[in-house]
């Protein structure tokens, strides 16, 4: 289809304008407001004990949730793409539940199950394990909300790659484990990487579910998003912007890391 030049330019303008209004300008303003009063002020506000604790808590939670979801995601994607078993359709639909349910509902449901008045919260508490208003609860909530990303990125890649290479590896004497590490994983690595990046972004940015289960104890169960909300609520606007910028920077580092390792792909394949 050919589109006449004025139309093409017009469409381009609308697309870029839309992107700018919704994305670039708001994010740009956050950065601008953050550094409005100089770098020193920003540093002071992100190096308070509460901010440092929130930063490390966010990193810790992400470092637990994302690897677990990655392993789960790859196994589940293999099952969905290669397996033949009853209930596959149901499982496939269930994977998307975290996308369909509002995070705040996820948080509340975790409280219902693991809270002190919940199904087995009391038993866990007796055993000395506190889930709700504690780090395990935050990890659970984060795992829940970022569950589908790796599965959803890897399943179509597995389908597209097909299983001939795996069959060839088997006829050449490779066992299942060797085939997975040497053939399957390299073939899906970009799908996995993309799923991981999305999971990381979702994990560090999660607010709703975490806000319900964490108890928001500064220095203990306050993640970066909760810190931003807390400062914003207390009219510490500059502090909120600084924390928000820190949050955005973590996400940017993840994206950059991916972009840096990515170009090798086009060369080789």
């Amino acid at each position: 289809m050919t589109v006449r030049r004025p139309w093409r330019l017009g469409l381009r303008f609308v697309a870029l304008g839309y992107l700018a209004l919704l994305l670039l300008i708001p994010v740009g303003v956050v950065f601008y407001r953050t550094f409005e009063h100089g770098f020193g002020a920003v540093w002071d506000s992100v190096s308070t004990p509460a901010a440092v604790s929130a930063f490390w808590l966010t990193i810790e939670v992400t470092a637990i949730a994302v690897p677990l979801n990655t392993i789960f995601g790859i196994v589940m994607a293999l099952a969905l793409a290669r397996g033949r078993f009853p209930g596959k359709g149901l499982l496939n639909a269930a994977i998307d539940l975290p996308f369909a349910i509002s995070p705040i509902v996820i948080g509340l449901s975790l409280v219902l199950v693991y809270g002190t008045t919940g199904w087995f919260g009391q038993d866990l508490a007796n055993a000395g394990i506190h889930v709700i208003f504690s780090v395990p609860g935050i990890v659970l909530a984060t795992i829940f909300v970022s569950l589908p990303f790796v599965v959803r990125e890897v399943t179509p890649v597995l389908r597209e790659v097909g299983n001939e290479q795996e069959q060839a590896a088997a006829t050449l004497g490779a066992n299942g484990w060797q085939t997975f590490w040497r053939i399957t994983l390299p073939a899906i690595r970009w799908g996995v990487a993309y799923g991981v990046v999305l999971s990381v972004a979702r994990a560090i940015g999660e607010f709703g579910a975490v806000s319900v289960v964490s108890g928001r104890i500064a220095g203990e169960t306050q993640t970066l998003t909760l810190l931003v909300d807390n400062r914003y609520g207390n009219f510490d606007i500059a502090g909120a912007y600084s924390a928000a910028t820190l949050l955005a920077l973590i996400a940017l580092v993840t994206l950059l890391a991916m972009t840096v390792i990515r170009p090798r792909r086009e060369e080789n394949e």
Partner: protein
Amino acid sequence: MIAATNITKRFGDFVALDDVSLEVPDGSLTALLGPSGSGKSTLLRIIGGLEAPDAGQVLINDRDATTTSPQRRGIGFVFQHYAAFKHMTVRDNVAFGLKVRKQPKARIKERVDELLGIVGLAGYAERYPSQLSGGQRQRMALARALAVEPEVLLLDEPFGALDARVRTELREWLRRLHEEVHVTTLLVTHDQEEAMSIADHIAVMDHGRIEQVGAPRDLYDQPANPFVMSFLGPVSKLGSKLVRPHDISLSQIAVEGAAQAMVSRIVHLGFEVRVDLMLAEGEAVEVQLTRHEADELELHVDDIVWLRSAGAPALSA
């Protein structure tokens, strides 16, 4: 030797293989020839362990391999679409089977270099499959399969994805390679010319059954039934008989027992001349003549001629 006995395989209601038995003699190059859906690839995949039969037994060199995983069957398998490991260089592709067998590095390098030489890819070791042509990829896949010194080599339409010229080239090359390496080989193809030109034995398949097994020439000259006859080459129907078009002789004088026909079209194909005729009953017959024979007859369109089968085999239709 490969021996598959009484193999049956169903996919849902579809019977892919119906009580099929096949023997592939030691050191031979046998072709499984048949139209698509005849079950030939399924039989090959069952022999290779990539598919499990519903019933029957597979023996590879007298060992029962029916339930053995492909990993332990001692086979080399070549796929129609190469199944190249895209993220590995040609060298790593060919070395794969040796690496998973934990062979010493120096030994692997030596063997890979030797194989790349045999398949004519010596200068391509550090390339990726995407940088090779289809024919080169398939030669790489062959080297990869041969690297582990398989007891039998199984090829699933190995030249099916290549263009006609490369296909013919690779066919000749495979025949020569087989004469050098002598590994028992079973090749699946739907192309009768391919099967006739490289195989010592051909098993013709149709509808999940083996119709006939034999040397190419025997199948061509003594086909067991009309299907085999028509699958291996062109056929013309003369009265109630099926005859090869080159086994029909023409004469311009009435002959006892010959059928009268009118020339409807003459096509000159270099050495061969193809004559389309119309029998008195209104049926079309095709006849192949050499250029020399056609010249002697001085045929013209609308001439009346007499046809009869020239001795050679004819089947009742």
